[in-house]
C-alpha cells in the first residue's frame, strides 16, 4: 500500500512565524501535491511538484512556498504565518500525471492553527 506520511497531525503556531509542514511518500511517486481544505470551499491546490527541485503554482500559492530536494519528500512553507492560513493541509502523491488516470494518494492531514 502507498503510504503518505505528514509529520504532524496538529500544529499550533503564532502569527509571523515561519512554519514548515513535511510530507514523505514511500512509493517512488513522481508527483506530489499540497492542498488546503476549508469548510464550504473543498480542496484547493497550493503547489505541486512533478520532479525533484521542480515546482508549479496551484490555485492559491500566495503566502506559501515549497521545497522538494528529494523525490520522497515535499515540504510546504508558510513564510510568515497569518490567521487566515488556519486550515487543514493535505499532502498527496501520484505516479505519472493525474490526467493519465493515476489517482492521488493522501496523507491524514495536518490541522494547523495560527494564533
Amino acid at each position, binding site marked *: 500500500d502507498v503510504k*503518505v506520511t505528514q509529520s504532524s*497531525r496538529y500544529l499550533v503556531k503564532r502569527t509571523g512565524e515561519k512554519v514548515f509542514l513535511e510530507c514523505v511518500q514511500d512509493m517512488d511517486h513522481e508527483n506530489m501535491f499540497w492542498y488546503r481544505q476549508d469548510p*464550504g*470551499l*473543498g*480542496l484547493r*491546490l497550493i503547489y505541486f511538484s512533478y520532479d525533484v527541485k521542480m515546482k508549479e503554482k496551484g490555485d492559491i500559492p500566495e503566502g506559501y512556498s515549497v521545497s522538494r530536494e528529494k523525490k520522497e519528500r515535499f515540504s510546504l512553507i508558510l513564510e510568515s504565518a497569518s490567521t487566515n492560513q488556519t486550515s487543514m493541509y*493535505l499532502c*498527496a502523491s501520484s505516479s505519472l*500525471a*493525474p*490526467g*493519465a*488516470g493515476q*489517482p*492521488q*494518494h*493522501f*496523507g*491524514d*492531514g495536518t*490541522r494547523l492553527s495560527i494564533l
Partner: protein
Amino acid sequence: AQSVTQLDSHVSVSEGTPVLLRCNYSSSYSPSLFWYVQHPNKGLQLLLKYTSAATLVKGINGFEAEFKKSETSFHLTKPSAHMSDAAEYFCVVSAALNTGGFKTIFGAGTRLFVKA
C-alpha cells in the same frame, strides 16, 4: 474548461437502504473520474476510478459508479448502506489541458449520514 458539481451537499439514508451520491462533470477532453471518501480527521481514500475502460466501475466497500457520457454524470451508488459509510465523499475529474499539462478538479463534497 473543466468543472465538477456534486448535486447534494448532504445525503441522509437509513442503514440497509441504497445510497446514491450524484456527480456531474464537464471536460473538454476525455476525463478520468474518481470518487474519494474522507472520514473525520483523515485524508482522502480512493474508492474507485474511471479511465475510459468499462463504464460501470466497481470500487471498494461495495461502492460502484457508472460513467454516462451523454448525461455527463458519474454517480456513486451502494445497494445497502452501513453505519461505517458515514463520511464525506468527493467526486474528482482530471483531464489533459490543451497547453500540455493536466488539471484535477475536486467537487465540493457530499456528506453522507447513515441512520440506525
